[in-house]
């Protein structure tokens, strides 16, 4: 368990927060700093701080494995051998238009595709609406035609139908008078 800012009985001279800050200083500074007895005593007692120190040290060593101690004897020659190509490369990189130029055809193709999609979609939508409207009119026409043909099928002008109608009308009239 870590103690932040509170000095515990087992750690009379240093708390965990102080210990962590010191460990950060020491790990990042490498072996430059002198051993710290107080910190050593604290980490000997405190498992959490010991673990923090181990993880920090391991991570630091893994993070910066390529720090140099000895100069490269060929550095100067390489520097001037690669100067021209380096300047060419940096000149090209510094041109901010290069990526824009590179992507311009693709970006314009994408924009054209979007516009074409919008236009085609609009056209399709419009024709769909007009087809729907047209089909609505033909349905009305068809319905009236069906009604007429149905009426014709029933042959309402037949003599039997007329007789039947007259009979029904007569009956209803007599019912009303009664």
């Amino acid at each position, binding site marked *: 368990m870590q103690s932040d800012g509170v000095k515990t009985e087992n750690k009379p001279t240093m708390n965990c927060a102080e210990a962590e800050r010191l460990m950060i200083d020491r790990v990042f*500074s490498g072996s430059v700093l002198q051993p710290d007895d107080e910190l050593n005593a604290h980490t000997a007692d405190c498992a959490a701080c010991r673990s923090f120190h181990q*993880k920090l040290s391991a991570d630091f060593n893994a993070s910066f494995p390529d720090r140099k101690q000895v100069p490269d004897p060929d*550095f100067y020659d390489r520097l001037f051998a690669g100067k021209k190509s380096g300047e060419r490369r940096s000149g090209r990189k510094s041109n901010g238009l290069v990526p824009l130029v*590179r992507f311009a055809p693709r970006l314009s193709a994408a924009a054209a595709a979007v516009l074409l999609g919008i236009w085609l979609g609009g056209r399709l939508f419009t024709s769909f609406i007009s087809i729907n409207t047209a089909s609505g009119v033909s349905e009305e026409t068809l319905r009236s035609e069906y009604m007429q043909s149905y009426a014709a099928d029933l042959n309402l002008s037949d003599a039997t139908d007329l007789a039947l109608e007259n009979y029904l009308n007569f009956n209803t009239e007599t019912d009303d008078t009664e």
Partner: protein
Amino acid sequence: MSDAELMRKVADGDPESGRRFAGQFQVLVYNVCYSFIHNRHDAEDVTQEVFLEAFRNAGRFRGDAKISTWLYRIAVNRSLNFIRNNRKRRFWQELSAVFDPGPSGSNSQEFEMSDDATDGRLKNLEQKSVIGKALDSLPENQRIAFTLNKMEDLSYAEVAEVMQLSLSAVESLIHRARLGLQKRLKNYYF
């Protein structure tokens, strides 16, 4: 030979002085760049850029500060510029991947940074260690002050000179950087 004398000869194009200057300071410059960039190949490239700039501007060195202070300043600026440009480069590369995900897209000759080596470098940057991420998440000034003081072993006064700040400002930056790192590392480790 004094610093000013050495730089005057470098400016005059004396190859022996140039060789001496490069030999004397290349480890220092490389380590500063490496501390910021966390990648050997990129740090070597930036080190070369720092020296090319130093050779170009050797005539302007007045001798008011030490050569190392002057070089630290160039190295820090170049490294931070590299990191910023790298972010832009990553953006364009991701955009390129969106438009052209196939392997045929990488054969463009004009855009050298889209080759395999760069992919590896970008991958390295993405897989940065906990410490790398924690350092990178600090505000720039805190990061510079902390890195120069702790990792490059510069005194507060030297850091103040490189960053052109007061001593108390540097003390405050380093203190806040330490607290920030402590907080971030605790979050990662526990």
